[in-house]
């Protein structure tokens, strides 16, 4: 790892859809973030137990462990990450955002999210933790 990558904020993109992961990864990488990917909630929790992420970008509908359960696990005593979580979903039913916030998310966005908006939000949330992109 170069000193450059070591200082860049590290983001975990969690989505079962490969194209969504690629899209969010490319946007965030171009925005100056170091990005890892997970295909479901279980993979995300495993990754979070071994790596200190500065931000999580999490889908809702995923196999094995859905997004809300994933965020609850990230906030649990076992993982206990203080890093901000942005949930992004195709779902915009009444109550979905409340579910996200109850699970421990900091922000709930509905797809599609404009690329510059995602990068801007990621920058703001990680800057609050003292790791600007």
């Amino acid at each position, binding site marked *: 790892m170069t000193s450059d990558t070591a200082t860049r904020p590290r983001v975990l993109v969690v989505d079962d*859809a*490969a*194209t969504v992961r*690629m899209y969010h990864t490319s946007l965030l990488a171009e925005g100056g973030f170091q990005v890892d990917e997970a295909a479901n909630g279980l993979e995300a929790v495993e990754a979070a137990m071994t790596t200190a992420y500065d931000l999580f970008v999490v889908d809702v509908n995923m196999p094995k462990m859905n997004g809300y359960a994933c965020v609850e696990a990230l906030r649990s005593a076992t993982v206990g990450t203080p890093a901000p979580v942005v949930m992004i979903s195709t*779902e915009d039913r009444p109550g979905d955002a409340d*579910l996200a916030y109850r699970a421990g998310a900091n922000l709930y966005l509905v*797809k*599609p999210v404009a690329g510059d908006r995602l990068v801007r939000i990621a920058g703001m949330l990680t800057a609050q933790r003292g790791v600007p992109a």
Partner: protein
Amino acid sequence: MGLVRKQAPQAPEEVSPEQPAAEALMRQLDDPDPEVRREAALALDGVTEAVHALLIRATVETEPRVRDAVLTTLAVHDTEEVAGALAVHLASDDPGLRTAVAEALATMPRSTPSLIPDLLAAPDHDIRVMTAMVLADLPHPEAKTWLVRMIAEDSHPNVVTAAIDALLPVATSEHADVLEEAVHRFPGDPFLRFTVQTAVSRLVGTA
């Protein structure tokens, strides 16, 4: 003194501890202990008379591991009754339930296909997104055709992108046209454009 083997009384209706009767197992689906409910659900595999009780439990169960066991057992039946009852939950407010149901329906190739036309026409685009998830894993010869139809005709960009993602693992260069046409139908959607560009470049071997 010789050993005398004592004959245990065996009433005809008596059930051994290893194989509790289906009725007892169905009662255990309501047990307060999640592990008892989970084991009961798995033990009811192949018991036709338990389908109704399992469908009810699938609706009210809040413990993910129990719900997964219930759906696994139900999916084995693969009947239109079961598939139709499960498909209702694709519209559930519970994300765990709707995702688990989508996974279960994808393992029911005999009965799920009969539901697809109605699911593709569902007014709620979230249900159509979930249908793309089902078709992604449904082992059926028409699955690819339905996904192509979603990409070509659905009016919501999130449904189209979900269908594209589901089609990608089995897509060929012959699908490039329908993918590119989707971009023209939703010119203001950057994610859809990215998805199609990624897909098409891979399909034509220029990635």
